[in-house]
C-alpha cells in the first residue's frame, strides 16, 4: 500500500501512477510484480543487451527479457517497484519507453488458437510428405501386393492425421449444417470424408486408385490458408491491443488521507478526482476547485480551448491544459458522455456488416455447384454403368478436383501479403474485409482537428508585431505550458526575451508580469481586454496600451497536403467535415484546395451526411480521430483513424494509422485496389484449373496422380500470384 500513496512526479497522471500489477498485488500475497514496457525504438542485438543490462543493474529487478519482435520488455520485479521507476532507467540507456497496461495485453500473451492451428498444420504436413513418398511408388508402377501394402500404410498414416488436423473444417461444417446453410467447409469436409471412405473401400478390394494422398494434401493446403488468415488477424489484434494498453486507465483520487492512484474502473460517483495539466478527464463531473482551460477537440472538433472554472461541467475525454483541476464525479464508466456516444455508434448501420466479402460471394456460388456436379456425375455413371463402385469413385474424384483448395488460399495469401506491406508503411489493418472495402472507395471524408491538422497551433501574424513586443511576448509565454504560449515561444525563438519580472500564470486566463514598472499581460481576450475573434488568438497588452492579438492556425499534419492532392489525382472526391466553426474550416479547405466542406457538424450530422452519400451510391472512406467522428466512422464503407485518436474512434475504424504522417493513405488505396485485383485473379486461376480438370474427372479419366498435380499446382500458382504484392 505504501506505493499507492507515492505522489506522481510527472505531469501525465497515466505515466506516473503505480502499475496495474500493484493493484493485483493488493489481493494476492505481494511477492512479485510483472511490468511490461513498450520500446518503440529498439532494433538491434546490442539494444537488447543494453536495455536488459540497465534494468538488471537495479537490485529490485528479478528478471528482464526483451522481445524484439513485439518491441517490448517483460520485467519481473519486487512488488515495491513501479513502471514509473523503470522508465527513466531505460531512457537513461538511450531508448524511448512507455508503460503498457498488463491487463489489456493479457489476451495476446498466449495465442492458443494460433498454436493449435500450427500443430494441426505440422501433423498434416508430416503425413502428407510420407504418404506422397508411398504414392509416388504407386504412380511409378507398383502393382499387386506391394501396391496394396502401400495403400494400407497410407491409410494407417492418413486416418489419424485427418482425424486430428481436419477438426477445424469438420467443426465449422457441422455448425453451418446445423444452422441450415452451406459454407466453404461443407464441400471440404464432404470431399475429405468421401475420398477416405472410397479409398478404404477400394483398398479393401485391392483396387488401383486410392485418394489418401489427395485427402491429406488437401487438408495441408487448406490449413495453410487458415493459418495465414489467423496470423494476419492476430498480428493486427496484438498491435491494436498494444495501442489500447499504452493508455493506462488510472486516475488520482483525493481522499481525507491524501492522494491515491486508482484504476478508472474503480471510481464512484461523488469521488473527488485531481486532473493534472495534460491529463484527460476520466469521468463526467463538475469542477470544484481550480481554474484552467479545457481542450475539447477530441469530443467536438473545436480548436479553441474553453475556460474551466469551479461550477462548470466537464465530460470524460476533455483534456486539461494549464493548471490542476479538482473534479467531483457525476457520472462514471458506462454513464459518461463518452459511453453515451457509443449508443450513437450502435444505431449507425455499419459499413462492415453491410459488406459481403469476395470469399463469401464465391462460396455462395461455389458450394452448391460442386455438390450438384458431383451428385450428377454419380447418378450419371450409376445409370450408365450400373456399377456402384465406379460411380462412387467418380463422385469422389469430382469432389476432390473441385475442392476449394486454391480458393481457400486465394484470399488469405493475398490479405497476408497486402497487410504485411501496409503494416511496414504504418497502416494497421484491423478488419478482415477492410482491404476489399477500401478498394471500392470513391469518396474520402476527412475530419479536421486532429486528422488533417495535428492539433498544435502555429503563429500566423508575427510580422504585425515590433521586435520589442515580440520580446515581451516571448518572455510572458515562457511562464506557461499552454499550447498557445508554447507556439509563441517557438515562433519567437530567435528573439531574446525581455526582462520581465514577477512572471506569474493566472490559470485559465493567461500570464502576467512586470516590465519597466508596467504590467504586461498575455492571455484570453476577455481578461486582457481584446475583442472576441473567430480565429484562435492570444492577446498581448503592454501597460495600458491597446491589446494586440497573436493569431494562430492549426498546424497541418505531416503529409496532409500531399495525401489530399494524391487522392484528388486518383479521381476521388475529397470532402472536409468538421465540428469546428466556419472560419477555420473554410481557411483550411482553401489551403488544401478542398472544394466541398462542412463546418459546425454535430456527431449525428456527420453520420447522417455519410449515410446520405452512401444512399446516393458513393462508397465513403471516413478518416477521423475524435469522439464526434465515431458514428461517422462506423457508418462509412471503410474508415481510418490515426493512432492518436481516442480509443473509441480506433475501435470503430477498420484501419489505424500508426505513424504521424497521412501520406501512406493514397498508397493504401492503391495497394488495396491491387490486392482485390489479385484476389479476383486468384479466383480466375482456380476456376480455370477446375474447368480443365472437372471434365476429366466426370469422364472418369482422372487418376489420383492428375488430382494431386492439379491441386498442388493450382495452390502454388495462387500463392505465387499473391506474393507479387509484397
Amino acid at each position, binding site marked *: 500500500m505504501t506505493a499507492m500513496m507515492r505522489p506522481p512526479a510527472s505531469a501525465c497522471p497515466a505515466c506516473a501512477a503505480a502499475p496495474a500489477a500493484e493493484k493485483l498485488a493488493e489481493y494476492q500475497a505481494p511477492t512479485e510484480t510483472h511490468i511490461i514496457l513498450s520500446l518503440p525504438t529498439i532494433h538491434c542485438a546490442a539494444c537488447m543487451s543494453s536495455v536488459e543490462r540497465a534494468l538488471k543493474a537495479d537490485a529490485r529487478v528479478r528478471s528482464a527479457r526483451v*522481445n524484439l519482435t513485439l518491441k517490448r520488455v517483460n520485467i519481473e520485479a519486487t512488488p515495491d517497484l513501479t513502471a514509473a521507476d523503470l522508465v527513466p532507467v531505460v531512457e537513461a540507456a538511450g531508448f524511448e519507453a512507455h508503460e503498457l497496461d498488463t491487463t489489456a495485453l493479457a489476451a495476446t500473451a498466449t495465442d492458443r488458437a494460433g*498454436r493449435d492451428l500450427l500443430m494441426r498444420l505440422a501433423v498434416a504436413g508430416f503425413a502428407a510428405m*510420407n504418404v506422397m513418398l508411398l504414392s509416388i511408388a504407386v504412380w511409378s508402377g507398383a502393382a499387386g501386393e506391394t501396391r496394396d*501394402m502401400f495403400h494400407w500404410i497410407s491409410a494407417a498414416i492418413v486416418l489419424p492425421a485427418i482425424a486430428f488436423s481436419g477438426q477445424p473444417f469438420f467443426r465449422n461444417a457441422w455448425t453451418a449444417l446445423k444452422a441450415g446453410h452451406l459454407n466453404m467447409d461443407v464441400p471440404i469436409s464432404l470431399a475429405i470424408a468421401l475420398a477416405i471412405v472410397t479409398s478404404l473401400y477400394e483398398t479393401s478390394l485391392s483396387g488401383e486408385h486410392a485418394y489418401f494422398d489427395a485427402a491429406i494434401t488437401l487438408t495441408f493446403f487448406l490449413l495453410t490458408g487458415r493459418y495465414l488468415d489467423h496470423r494476419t488477424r492476430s498480428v493486427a489484434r496484438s498491435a491494436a491491443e498494444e495501442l489500447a494498453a499504452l493508455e493506462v486507465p488510472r486516475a488520482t483520487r483525493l481522499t481525507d488521507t491524501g492522494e491515491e492512484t486508482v484504476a478508472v474502473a474503480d471510481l464512484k460517483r461523488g469521488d473527488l478526482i485531481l486532473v493534472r495539466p495534460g491529463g484527460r478527464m476520466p469521468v463526467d463531473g463538475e469542477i470544484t476547485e481550480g481554474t484552467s482551460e479545457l481542450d475539447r477537440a477530441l469530443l467536438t472538433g473545436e480548436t479553441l480551448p474553453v475556460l474551466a472554472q469551479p461550477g462548470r461541467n466537464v465530460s470524460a475525454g476533455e483534456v486539461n491544459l494549464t493548471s490542476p483541476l479538482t473534479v467531483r464525479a457525476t457520472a462514471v464508466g458506462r454513464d459518461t458522455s463518452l459511453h453515451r456516444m457509443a449508443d450513437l455508434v450502435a444505431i449507425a448501420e455499419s459499413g462492415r456488416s453491410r459488406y459481403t466479402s469476395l470469399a463469401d460471394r464465391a462460396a455462395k456460388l461455389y458450394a452448391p455447384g460442386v455438390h450438384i456436379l458431383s451428385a450428377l456425375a454419380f447418378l450419371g455413371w450409376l445409370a450408365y454403368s450400373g456399377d456402384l463402385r465406379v460411380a462412387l469413385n467418380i463422385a469422389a474424384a469430382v469432389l476432390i478436383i473441385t475442392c476449394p483448395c486454391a480458393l481457400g488460399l486465394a484470399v488469405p495469401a493475398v490479405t497476408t501479403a497486402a497487410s504485411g506491406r501496409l503494416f511496414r508503411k504504418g497502416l494497421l489493418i484491423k478488419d478482415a474485409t477492410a482491404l476489399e472495402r477500401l478498394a471500392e472507395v470513391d469518396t474520402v471524408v476527412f475530419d479536421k482537428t486532429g486528422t488533417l491538422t495535428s492539433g498544435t497551433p502555429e503563429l500566423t501574424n508575427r510580422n504585425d508585431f515590433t521586435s520589442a513586443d515580440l520580446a515581451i511576448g516571448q518572455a510572458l509565454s515562457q511562464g506557461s505550458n499552454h499550447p498557445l504560449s508554447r507556439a509563441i515561444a517557438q515562433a519567437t525563438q530567435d528573439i531574446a526575451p525581455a526582462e520581465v519580472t514577477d512572471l506569474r500564470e493566472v490559470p485559465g486566463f493567461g500570464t502576467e508580469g512586470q516590465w519597466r514598472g508596467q504590467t504586461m499581460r498575455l492571455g484570453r481576450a476577455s481578461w486582457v481586454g481584446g475583442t472576441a475573434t473567430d480565429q484562435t488568438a492570444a492577446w498581448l497588452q503592454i501597460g495600458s496600451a491597446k491589446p494586440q492579438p497573436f493569431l494562430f492556425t492549426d498546424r497541418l499534419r505531416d503529409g496532409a497536403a500531399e495525401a489530399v492532392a494524391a487522392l484528388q489525382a486518383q479521381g476521388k472526391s475529397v470532402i472536409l467535415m468538421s465540428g469546428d466553426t466556419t472560419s477555420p474550416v473554410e481557411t483550411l479547405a482553401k489551403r488544401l484546395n478542398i472544394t466541398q466542406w462542412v463546418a459546425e457538424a454535430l456527431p449525428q450530422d456527420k453520420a447522417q451526411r455519410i449515410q446520405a452519400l452512401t444512399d446516393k451510391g458513393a462508397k465513403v472512406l471516413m478518416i477521423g480521430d475524435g469522439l464526434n467522428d465515431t458514428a461517422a466512422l462506423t457508418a462509412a464503407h471503410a474508415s481510418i483513424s490515426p493512432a492518436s485518436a481516442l480509443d473509441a474512434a480506433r475501435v470503430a475504424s477498420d484501419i489505424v494509422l500508426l505513424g504521424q504522417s497521412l501520406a501512406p493513405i493514397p498508397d493504401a488505396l492503391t495497394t488495396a485496389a491491387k490486392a482485390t485485383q489479385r484476389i479476383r485473379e486468384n479466383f480466375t486461376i482456380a476456376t480455370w484449373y477446375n474447368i480443365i480438370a472437372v471434365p476429366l474427372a466426370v469422364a472418369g479419366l482422372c487418376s489420383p496422380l492428375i488430382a494431386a498435380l492439379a491441386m498442388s499446382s493450382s495452390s502454388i500458382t495462387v500463392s505465387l500470384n499473391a506474393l507479387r504484392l509484397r
Partner: protein
Amino acid sequence: MNILTYLIPISLILGGMGLLFFIFTIRSNQYDDPEGDARRILSGEYDDKPKPPDA
C-alpha cells in the same frame, strides 16, 4: 523388396521424430520472438560461460 520392411518404418520414425521435435518447439514458446532470438546469438554475453539460472 524385403528392404522395404526396414526402410518404411525407418522413414516413418525419422519423420515422426521431426514432428515431435517441432511440437516440442511450439510448446516451449520458441516462436514468441523469432527476430530477437536470431539477433541474440550475435551478442557476446554468455559466450564464455552458460547463463546463470537466476539472471
